[in-house]
């Protein structure tokens, strides 16, 4: 009866290993580096699957481990075909595990994979599956035992030969032999059990040693492990989650729901703290003011820590792209190099989960429609290998993720024509749009200009789903392109959705909040700075012509003040920038985003509401849909 806890740990571990496998294999193909790690990964998969009783996974992993063993010894050449097969093998392992645990997808080509593995291995012959004979005992080290360790921790499982006389004595000799290579921390069976009549000749030892794996194996097999029918040497506790370079990070898995609750509580604390602040401010009690100030600091720290706890690095998202790009490039007969930058950038976990699909689509697009075929690129005077850059960075309260290619760029004419043909815009509307704005029409539903609807992408459903998914995450997406040179799609996302930093603005006698993640800058304009462009007040910002809108008008605020100097909030709407003129800038604040309840419909210009320290309800504007 498999223990549920072990099963979860196994599933977590193997899915991480398989992810790592994908990207390491691609690296390996390119550089030839990393054989050891690949070997270790298959080895670990073999061992842990065997101990879970998943024999097929263990066998397949064993074969793949053997293949890498040959590569390591220089007996097998690295070729694209080999890497292809290894990748298929990894897929096979994935499916097998899914089959064993969920019973869903079936690994249909299991036997096939085994056969192909045999082909690669040459005539190694059938090796007895050692997994079946070895003791699978789970030994745990106590802290005290761990402290005695000098060097890396290893686990040796072995089964003495049937005909070995005096098995007990033999095992004791083996233990002694290991003591010369390191320090034995724990063994099973222990001491007296080895001397009993019924000792079966199985032994599991946990020991520490500063010798390298290769050295250990050599010395064990040469001197120590005599009259042993089968053995397995593996690192004890080897792959932990965290950084790929093997550093130990102490981490635990936490249910997302628990983090959500922490975040809620932190949010409520922020509100109450603001009230306390208010009250302390109006009292003439210095001691109270001090306490309120201290409290404020602590709560800000707590809030930051809770939000940080929900953040995950984008590595988990970016990790699958090397493999995807490689497979896609091969399928489409294109040469593509993928550059990934800034994957250590962290985002809220809901954002990380939601952004994967859109990014997949954008990268597929870049390779399918963007990057040209090698011959065409050469003819254009470009490098045959196209380049796709996947980049993430943090900018204030927002995270920027971009997919850039040096391909053909967006054909503005084509977009214009198709948009017209499909009735998505009218002639007169088109005239008012700049090239940049026309390019961003690609995010409209129904606009795919690719003539052939390839299997991979481009049914015209793609880009608008990308946009709506990103908007649901609170972000915006925009495209910039130079025909013939390439395209860059930029996604801008807020760091978190629950507690945000916002700017409070006064419009007439009302107060509104605008999330900082949407704000580019605050500017003051004089009447001379304004220009009239086709009936719309505009001003220059960052070499762009930006439309100026009166927030009081947009929100139908009954009383507004007139000002000669316009206080303007420049907002990033994705496809363009807009300027909103307000009466007052009222300062920045951390606010908790609250819903307004189900009775009122979802107004697009509204991104929820918040409660300030004095109990006042302030509406949060969604800058993307104000105009």
């Amino acid at each position, binding site marked *: 009866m498999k223990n549920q806890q072990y099963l979860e740990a196994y599933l977590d571990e193997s899915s991480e290993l398989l992810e790592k496998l994908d990207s390491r294999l691609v690296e390996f193909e390119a550089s030839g580096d990393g054989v050891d790690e690949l070997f270790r990964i298959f080895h670990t998969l073999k061992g842990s699957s065997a101990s879970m009783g998943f024999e097929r996974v263990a066998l397949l992993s064993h074969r793949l481990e053997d293949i890498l063993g040959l590569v390591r010894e220089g007996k097998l050449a690295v070729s694209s075909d080999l890497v292809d097969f290894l990748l298929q093998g990894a897929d096979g392992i994935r499916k097998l595990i899914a089959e064993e645990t969920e019973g869903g997808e079936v690994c249909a080509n299991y036997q096939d994979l085994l056969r192909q593995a045999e082909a690669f291995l040459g005539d190694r012959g059938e090796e007895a599956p050692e997994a079946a004979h070895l003791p699978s005992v789970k030994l745990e080290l106590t802290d005290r035992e761990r402290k005695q360790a000098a060097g890396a921790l290893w686990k040796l499982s072995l089964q003495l030969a049937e005909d070995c006389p005096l098995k007990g004595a033999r095992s004791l000799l083996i233990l002694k032999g290991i003591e010369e290579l390191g320090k034995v921390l724990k063994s099973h069976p222990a001491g007296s059990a080895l001397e009993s009549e019924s000792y079966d000749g199985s032994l599991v030892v946990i020991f520490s040693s500063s010798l390298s794996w290769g050295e250990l194996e050599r010395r064990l097999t040469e001197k120590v492990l005599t009259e042993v029918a089968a053995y397995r040497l593996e690192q004890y506790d080897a792959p932990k989650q965290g950084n790929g370079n093997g550093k130990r990070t102490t981490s635990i898995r936490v249910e997302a729901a628990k983090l959500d609750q922490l975040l809620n509580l932190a949010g*409520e604390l922020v*509100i109450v703290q603001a009230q306390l602040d208010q009250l302390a401010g109006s009292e003439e009690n210095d001691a109270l003011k001090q306490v309120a100030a201290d409290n404020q600091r602590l709560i800000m720290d707590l809030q930051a820590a809770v939000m940080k706890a929900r953040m995950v690095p984008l590595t988990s998202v970016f990790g699958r792209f090397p493999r995807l790009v490689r497979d896609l490039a091969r399928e489409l007969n294109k040469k593509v190099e993928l550059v990934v930058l800034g994957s250590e950038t962290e985002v809220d976990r809901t954002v990380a989960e939601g952004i994967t699909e859109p990014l997949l689509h954008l990268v597929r697009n870049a390779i399918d429609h963007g990057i040209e075929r090698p011959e065409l690129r050469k003819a254009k005077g470009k490098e045959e290998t196209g380049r796709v850059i996947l980049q993430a960075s943090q900018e204030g309260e927002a995270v920027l993720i971009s997919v850039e290619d040096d391909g053909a760029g967006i054909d503005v004419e084509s977009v214009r024509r198709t948009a017209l043909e499909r009735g998505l815009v009218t002639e007169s509307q088109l005239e008012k749009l700049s090239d940049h704005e026309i390019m961003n029409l690609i995010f409209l539903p129904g606009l795919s200009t690719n003539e052939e609807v390839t299997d991979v992408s481009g049914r015209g459903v793609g880009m608008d789903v990308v946009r709506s998914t990103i908007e649901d995450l609170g972000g915006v997406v925009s495209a910039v392109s130079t025909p013939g040179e390439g395209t860059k799609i930029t996604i801008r996302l807020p760091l978190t959705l629950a507690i945000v930093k916002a700017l409070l603005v006064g419009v007439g006698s*009302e107060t509104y909040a605008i999330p900082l993640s949407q704000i580019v800058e605050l500017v003051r304009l004089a009447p001379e700075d304004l220009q009239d462009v086709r009936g719309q007040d505009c001003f220059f910002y960052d070499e762009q012509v930006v439309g100026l809108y009166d927030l009081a008008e947009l*929100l*139908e*605020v009954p009383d507004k003040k007139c000002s000669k100097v316009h206080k303007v909030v420049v907002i990033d709407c994705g496809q363009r920038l807009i300027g909103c003129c307000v009466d007052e800038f009222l300062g920045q604040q951390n606010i908790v985003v*609250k*819903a*307004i*309840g*189900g*009775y*009122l*419909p979802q*107004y697009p*210009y*509204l991104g929820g*509401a918040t*409660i300030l320290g004095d*109990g*006042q*309800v*302030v*509406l949060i504007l969604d800058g993307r849909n104000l105009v």
Partner: protein
Amino acid sequence: MKRKELKQEEMEQLVVFRLGKEEFGVQILQVQEIILLSPITRVPKTPAFVEGVINLRGEIIPVVDLRKRFGLEVGELGEDARIVVVEVEGNLVGMIVDEVTQPLSIPASQIQPPPPLAGGVEAEYLRGIGKLEDRLIVILNLERALSPEEVKALAEMEV
């Protein structure tokens, strides 16, 4: 001796309030609480009868003015004005009323189906008219009167 069996008559329990001169009632089970008027934050682009939102112990709920909702005369709100917080189909909504009077129990037999117009309100928003001594209580159908679909439709019309 024969014992007369008294049939337990079904009683409707109502919270009763005044809008202008008319008295209205809603089922007591739908009422969460009754609070004093508190500062209301206006929500742009909502229908005229939606006054805005208020802070109810940390929860943000919308508030409507029933007089505007039903096109009744809108006089000044006096000291007795209150907000009746009701729950309709899982949503909390506050209703501004001129005065809240004593809750009542009316026997079901005393409730008649509403005429086309009662108390200035169309029948489709009413569940019936209750008669109690010399009072006529117009009983509201909150699911109809405060339906989110209607607000949504009105919002789309104004765009």
